[in-house]
C-alpha cells in the first residue's frame, strides 16, 4: 500500500511538472523574455525565431513587434524591420522609441516617401490616424456620439438660446461624424502592406513580360487592391497602381480581411 502511494505521488509529481513545463512553453511572455535574452546576447536570428513563435501562438503586442523589428534591423532586413514596426504601431501608435526606430529604419532603406505628393487634407488625416489605435478611434467616435445624444436631449430640456443649442449640437455632430469617418478610414489598414524585398518591380499587367511601371523598395507602404494568383494589384501612397508579385510584400495586419481579398 505504501509503495502504491509512493508510486502514485511520483506519477502525480511528473504529471504536474510536465503540466507546468507545458504551461511555460505556452506562455507567450516566457518566449518573449527568452527572445530578449537572445537579443542581448547579440543572437538576433534566435531572437527573431522566439518572437515569431509567440506570434504563432495567435497573440501579439506592441512591444513584441517592436523587438522583432529591432532584430530584423540588426540583421539588415529593412523591409521586415519596417513591416514589424508598422505592425507595432497598431498597438502602440504614440510610442516615441518606436517612432524613432521606424524613422531610422526608413532612413536606411531606399524607399522614398511619396507622402509629400499627397494633399494636405489627406496628410493631416494620415497623421491623425497614426496617433490612435483603431480601438481608440472607435471609442472616441462612440464618446462623441454619446455627447451628441446628451446635447440633443439637453437642448430639449434646458432652456438655452436656440442658436447656442445649434452651435453645440453642430460642433458635436461634426466631431462625431468626423471621428466616425476617421475610424472607417482607419479600418482600411487591413489593406495596407509593406514591401519586404529589397526592391520589387510594379508592372502594368500581372505578368513578368509586362512593361515595368515603377520600383518599390524595402519597407515602402502600399495598399493591396486585389490578389490574383501569385500577383497582386497594389496602390502606392501617391495613388499610382501597379501589379507586383504577391510574395514581395506582407500585409501590415496579419489577420482581419485577408479572406476578402483572396
Amino acid at each position: 500500500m505504501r509503495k502504491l502511494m509512493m508510486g502514485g505521488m511520483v506519477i502525480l509529481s511528473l504529471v504536474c511538472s510536465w503540466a507546468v513545463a507545458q504551461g511555460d512553453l505556452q506562455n507567450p511572455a516566457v518566449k518573449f523574455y527568452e527572445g530578449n535574452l537572445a537579443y542581448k546576447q547579440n543572437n538576433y536570428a534566435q531572437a527573431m525565431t522566439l518572437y515569431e513563435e509567440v506570434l504563432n501562438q495567435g497573440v501579439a503586442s506592441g512591444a513584441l513587434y517592436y523587438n522583432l523589428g529591432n532584430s530584423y534591423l540588426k540583421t539588415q532586413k529593412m523591409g521586415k524591420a519596417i513591416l514589424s514596426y508598422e505592425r507595432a504601431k497598431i498597438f502602440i501608435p504614440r510610442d516615441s522609441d518606436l517612432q524613432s526606430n521606424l524613422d531610422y529604419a526608413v532612413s536606411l532603406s531606399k524607399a522614398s516617401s511619396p507622402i509629400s505628393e499627397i494633399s494636405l487634407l489627406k496628410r493631416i488625416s494620415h497623421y491623425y490616424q497614426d496617433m490612435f489605435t483603431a480601438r481608440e478611434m472607435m471609442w472616441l467616435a462612440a464618446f462623441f456620439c454619446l455627447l451628441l445624444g446628451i446635447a440633443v436631449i439637453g437642448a430639449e430640456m434646458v432652456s438655452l438660446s436656440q442658436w447656442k443649442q445649434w452651435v453645440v449640437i453642430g460642433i458635436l455632430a461634426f466631431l462625431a461624424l468626423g471621428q466616425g469617418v476617421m475610424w472607417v478610414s482607419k479600418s482600411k489598414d487591413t489593406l495596407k502592406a509593406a514591401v519586404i524585398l529589397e526592391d520589387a518591380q510594379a508592372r502594368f499587367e500581372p505578368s513578368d513580360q509586362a512593361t515595368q511601371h515603377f520600383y518599390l523598395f524595402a519597407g515602402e507602404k502600399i495598399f493591396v487592391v486585389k490578389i490574383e494568383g501569385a500577383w497582386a494589384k497594389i496602390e502606392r501612397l501617391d495613388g499610382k497602381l501597379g501589379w507586383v508579385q504577391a510574395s514581395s510584400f506582407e500585409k501590415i495586419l496579419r489577420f482581419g480581411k485577408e479572406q476578402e481579398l483572396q
Partner: protein
Amino acid sequence: MILFLSIALNAFSQDISFQASVDKKRAGLDSTIVLDLTVTGVQNASPIELPEIDGFKSRYIGPSTSISIVNGQYSSSVSQKYILYPQKTGSLTIPAFASTIDGKQYETQPIDVEILESAPAESQLSSSDAVNRPTNLEDKALLRLEIPKEKVYVHERLPVTIKLYASSISLTDIQFPALAQNDFVFEDFGKPVQYQDVLNGVSYDVVEFNTVAYPAKDGIFTLGPAQLDCNVVYKRSSSRGSGFGGFPDDFFSDFFSNYEKYPIALKSEVRNVEVLPLPQGAPQGFGAAVGQFDFQLSASPLEVNVGDPITVKMTISGRGDLKTIDMPAYKDSENFKVYDPQIKQQGNVKTLEQVLIPKAEKVNQVPAVAFVYFDPQKQTFETIRQGPFALTVHPSPQGAMPQVVEGKQEKAAVAETLGRDVIFIKENPGVFYPMGVVLGDRNVFLLFLLLYMFGIIAILVVYRRKVRMKTDVGYAKRLRAPQKARQGLRAAEHFLKVHKPKEFYDAAYKVLQKYFAEKFSIPEGMVTAHDLHEILLKRSISLAMIGKVQELFSACELIRYGAISSDTAAMQKNYQALKEILDFFERL
C-alpha cells in the same frame, strides 16, 4: 439727518467711504428714481429704514454687494437700494445722509433732482426710419480728461487720465481715445481699468484710460479734447409683424434686427497746461533728463592684459522720458580704445553697454561717469556720479593675438554631430491581444450606435409627449378619451349582464358624452343629439354614422328619463352600436 448703519467691518485695510447716488436726475411724476446708498470698504451692511424725504415716498428694494480685484487691489462695497416715488413736481433735493462707521462719521452729498409732470423723452422717433435712436446722451455717456497739475517743465512726465462715464446705456466697440496734440509726446495707453463711480450724485460705470504726456517745448498749450469712438446699443422699435404663432419669422434676423448699434463720438473738455522752461545753469553733461532717476555703473573684468576688452554697463531707471535721455558714454582717449555703445530700453530701465580696451599697462582705473538730471519736484539739477574703478592692466603676453571684440554677438553655435542607432528593445511585453481584435468589432459598435439612436429618439418622443400632455389640455383629453371610454364601456357591459336597463343606458350616455367632449375639445354640455349632428357634419362624418350616434343618444335619453323600458335584446343591440361608434371614431 443722522442714520446709523449696522455695518460689519472686516480686516481689509481699505479706505471707507459712504456715497449716495441716483439712477437719474430728471424724472416724471409717473416714474421712479433708484437711490443707492453705497458703503465702500466693507463686506456687508444691514439695510436701514429711510426717513421721510420731502416730495418722495420711498421703498427699500434690497442690497447688492460688489467685490473686485484690479491689479491685485482688493475692494468691496455694499449698496442698499431704494425706490423713490415722486409726489410733486419741481426741483427737489434728496438730503444728505450721515452714518457712523467704525466710530467715525461719514456723510453723503445732497442730490438735486428735477421732477416733471411726465417722464422726459429719452428717445425720439425719426421720421426716416422706425428705430429708437438715443438722442439724449449727455447725462448717460461722457468723457473726462484729467491731469494732476497744470504747470509742468519741458520733458516732465505728465500723467493723463481719460475717463469714460456711462450710466443706463449700453456701449460697445469702445476704441482707445485719441489725443491730437503736436506739442506733447504721448506714451501708448495702458490696459483700461473698469470700475464704478459716483459723479454729481449719479452712479456711473467708468472705463479709465491712462497714458503719460511729455511736453516737447515751453509755452502755454491746450491739452485735448480727447475723442473716443464707440457704439451705443439700442433696441429697435418692433414695427414688424411676427411669424406664425407669435414666433419671430427667423430667429437670427430677429436677434440681430431688434438691436442696433449707433456710432457716437464722445469729446472731453480741454485742459490748459503751462509748460515751463528748465532753469538756466544746467551742469555739464546734462542730457535732457527730467524726472526722478537712479544711475548705476559697473565694469568687468578689472584685471586684464593690454588689448583685452573691459565691458562697462550703465543703467538708468526711474520716472521720466527715458527715450529722450542722452546716455553718458565713454569716448576715445589716450588710455582706452572705445567701441560704439549698445543702448537698450525695457520699460522704465535704459541700459548702455560699451567695450573699453586699455592701450597701455600704465592705465590704472576706469574713469568715473556722471549722470545729470533735473528733478521737477525739487526744482534743481541733480548729479549722480559712479566710479572710478581701480583697474590692473598687465603687459600683453608675447605672441598673443589681440582678442576680437564682437560686441554682444553670441558665439556661433557649433553643430553637434550625434550618432544614430536603434533604440534598445522593450523589456516588458505589454498586453498580449489575440490576433484579430485590435480593430474593434464594427458590428458591435454599429449595434451600439443603432440602439443608442433609438434610445435618444425614444427619450425625445416620450419627453415631448409628456410636455404636451402638461401644456396642451385638448391633446391630453383626446389621448385620455379612449381610455375613459373603455372604462365606461366595461361599466355598461356590467349593467347589461345584470340587466339594469336604466343604469346601462345611463352609463352608455355618459360614455358617449364624455368621449365626444374630450375627442372634439368641447364642453360636455354641448354634447347633445342635436348639437352633435352639427359637429359631426362639420367633420365630414358619414350620415349613416351620424344617424347611428343620434339613434343611440335618443335611445339612451328615452330610457334614462323613464319614457319606455328596454329588453335585453335591445340593450345588447345598443351595446354593440356603442362599441361600433367608439371603434369608428378611434380609427378616424
